[in-house]
């Protein structure tokens, strides 16, 4: 065999969601990434999140740029739409797609190179526009696809496989998003699906851009001792500062079996995000405090994880632009192009 295929057989006891699908129905092509790549776990978490949300695969669009991470859109939801764009241009292509069809669920998958190096400007403006999408950054501190050069997220002092230390300061997408006014900011770890899946589900239900930075180790170029993005380092330095559960609209909201203090945020579609208090002072709705807390963790060499900030009241791109509720693709030619007299009447208003 030159490549491997996953047999179509499945466990007969697999659960079915509201659409009658099993998790296997949300899979895509067999991954060609290195065995053990964190990105594959992120894919598996997305498969489970979309399955649990009973997302209709044909109503989703998977968007990506270039990189190992960006390849992963091929590895889940084979029935969905998709666009694999030029390096770093996923945010603007998604903005355009969303402008034309606001009804699809947009899942953007990018890398730290794709989003923080070549595509940094694109990312910033997508955040500012608050494009309604899940924006995943598979963050491994390197350009995996081009053989492991330090990326813009590499920490100072983190070493390459050959032992050379990075000297340039890192860009932290979480801090960046918080300063740019992002309305949903989270960080997860590919090796902790229990934490990641509720975050992804909340992000998919968010009314705006949901940025999820996921530490996703590159087993081939950045999983050695000396790396600050390895499985081992992340497990030893991860601090969950905000723990969120996601309760979808369909399920009855029951009192959780915990004695911890709980606060809840209701999403625009009626589903609920429930925060368990992990740090006494942490408030996931206070942007300035969130920023300060994440920054403090960073300085202590800790990796702050969790659903770090959520503001469900923000205006998304369509609200700001006051577009019609009907997706533009569904409007008739006549409605989209009302003719010369309508244009003249509009121009008249500006004279």
């Amino acid at each position: 065999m030159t490549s491997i295929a996953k047999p179509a057989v499945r466990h007969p006891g697999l659960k079915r969601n509201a659409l009658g699908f099993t998790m296997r129905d949300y899979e895509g092509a067999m991954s060609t990434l290195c065995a053990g790549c964190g990105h594959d776990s992120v894919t598996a978490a997305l498969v489970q999140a979309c399955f649990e949300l009973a997302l209709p695969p044909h109503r989703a669009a998977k968007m990506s740029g270039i990189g190992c991470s960006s390849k992963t859109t091929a590895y889940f939801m084979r029935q969905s739409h998709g666009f694999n764009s030029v390096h770093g241009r996923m945010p603007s292509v998604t903005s355009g797609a969303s402008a034309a069809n606001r009804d699809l669920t947009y899942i953007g998958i990018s890398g730290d190179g794709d989003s923080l190096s070549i595509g940094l400007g694109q990312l910033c403006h997508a955040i500012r526009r608050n494009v309604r999408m899940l924006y995943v950054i598979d963050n491994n501190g390197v350009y995996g696809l081009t053989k492991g050069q330090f990326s813009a997220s590499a920490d100072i002092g983190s070493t390459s496989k050959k032992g050379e230390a990075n000297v340039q300061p890192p860009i932290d997408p979480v801090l960046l998003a918080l300063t740019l006014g992002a309305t949903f900011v989270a960080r997860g770890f590919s090796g902790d699906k229990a934490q990641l899946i509720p975050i992804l589900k909340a992000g998919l239900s968010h009314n705006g851009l949901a940025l999820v930075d996921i530490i996703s180790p590159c087993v081939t170029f950045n999983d050695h001792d000396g790396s600050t993005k390895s499985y081992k380092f992340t497990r030893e330095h991860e601090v969950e500062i905000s723990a969120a559960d996601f309760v979808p609209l369909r399920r009855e909201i029951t009192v959780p079996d915990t004695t911890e203090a709980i606060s809840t945020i209701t999403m625009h579609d009626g589903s609920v995000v429930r925060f368990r208090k992990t740090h006494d002072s942490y408030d996931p709705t206070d942007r300035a405090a969130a920023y300060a807390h994440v920054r403090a963790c960073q300085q202590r060499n800790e990796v702050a994880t969790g659903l770090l900030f959520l503001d469900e009241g923000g205006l998304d791109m369509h609200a700001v632009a006051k577009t019609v509720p009907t997706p533009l693709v569904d409007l008739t030619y006549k409605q989209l192009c009302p003719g010369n007299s309508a244009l003249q009447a509009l121009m008249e208003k500006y004279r």
Partner: protein
Amino acid sequence: MPGPTDVTAPHHYHKVVDCQYACPAHTNVPEYLRLIAQGRYTESYLLNRESNVFPGILGRTCDRPCEPACRRGRIDGKPVAICRLKRVAADLRDDITAYLPKAPTVRNGKRVALIGAGPSSLTVANDLLPMGYDVVIHEKLSQAGGLMRFNIPAFRLPAHVLDEETGYIIDMGAEVHYDSPVSSLKSFLDDTHFDAVFVGSGAPKGKELDIPGRWDAGAREHIHIGIEWLGSVHFGHIEQIAKRVLIIGAGNTAMDCCRTSRRLGGTDTKVVARRSREFFKASPWELEDAGEEGIAIIENHAPKRFVIEQGTLAGMEFDTPTGAVIIPCDEVILAIGQDNAFPWIERDIGIDFDKWNMPVIDKSTFESTRKGVFFGGDAAWGPQNIIWAVEHGHQVAISVHQHCQALDVHDRPPQGMHLESTKMGLHSWAYSNDFNPSPRSQMKHAELVERFSKLSAEVELGFTPEQTATEVERCLNCDVETHFENTLCIECDACVDVCPVSCLTITANVESEGDLRTMLSAPAQNTTQDLYVSASLPQTKRIMVKDEDLCLHCGLCAERCPTAAWDMKKFELVLPYASMMSEVTA
């Protein structure tokens, strides 16, 4: 807390190989199927022969406990056609005489007597002759094979197959006395002075049905005992039967009786059973074959009396859920079970019998309460089947060997194992790991006219080369085990994520296995299948759990593991046989 599972002893991996575990003789099924896949029929035959001794016979007649156990059955509803593939190896092999074990010219000085020449005795002979034992067989009848010979009809088991496979053993140098029933074990033991005696005389008595009319003069000669009747047919004493025949009973003997009756002129043959179909003892495929031959099967009819009219048998009356019913008939064959009978064994010679008149036999050594006298096959605990008789034979040979060296018969060699990686390179394994979705192949049967033309016309025609090629690929290679090294795991989840049948889970350990079973990637509801539980993982101290139930042995977990914590290792069970033990030093 569950685990960690010990995979250094054979038990866990042996149990994963469902077919081999279920086979009384632990035949290495997946390995012989792979040999067939490679066209190595002779090697496949010889591998079979090591454990089950009669591959050609069993490839046609085995009760096949392996098939209901086969993992493939839990995947797509139909097990691999393990049994009939065994026949393929037997049919297509080359001459194997050169590879058979041979009796040494220098004998070891020990003499063993075997009573009966059925499969159990022949297996004892097969194991002891190459070790230099002198083996003397006393058989009541004129041919070797026991019930396989004179009860299993030739349309299921052709004589040449029996001749060949019983011949391989006898030709090693067994001294066989045909037509020489042992009529007194007491005088046999007193007069002959063997070092050990094995009783493999079977369960030769068909059960009676003592209801009114049974012994009436006009009826008696039209009522037959199934196994005796089949014997008479075999020896040519009976060549025909009347048109309307009732077979009483719904076991495999009943199936052989009804199909034989159909061939001898019983064009209106009916099988009448006391209970409903789900309780029938006959194998489903035997019932199917009988159905194909136009035999009616009547359920829920309890025999009440034989109906005699004008001094002859006219029918039988039955109790049914809706009242009494008379079914007219000309002849009746009783096939309601077999009993053991030991009128030739005196009760004062140190062999204890229990309240059911069965000898008291040690479950593991097969020794009776008299040292040096062993029982096996149907004679030990009542009627079973050929493959059990064979397994008993292997165990008896070990006991005999211990006994002849004055060693403790309970001191038996343990099972061993070999494990060997099958990794050849990237995406390349030394076995065919790709899942083949083909449905089970359908065996081609002879046309009805052909079948009814003569009694010995074999019904099953065997698999075509195409069917064989497909069917062997349906095997999941369950002996290629997923072997895990906890110290290498970095907990990346790659294996968990890729497994197509959700076998794997990384989780914190819990108190009980019952709880663990509910919290896996997919619930492990089949409790007959074990969980593999690893020792704790280096980074988080969690455990790796594998539910063995539905694993396809596809190797994807090992393929996707970055550290080779998972490997696909071929497991080979090393079974103890008498021939592997040290020689008699006397």
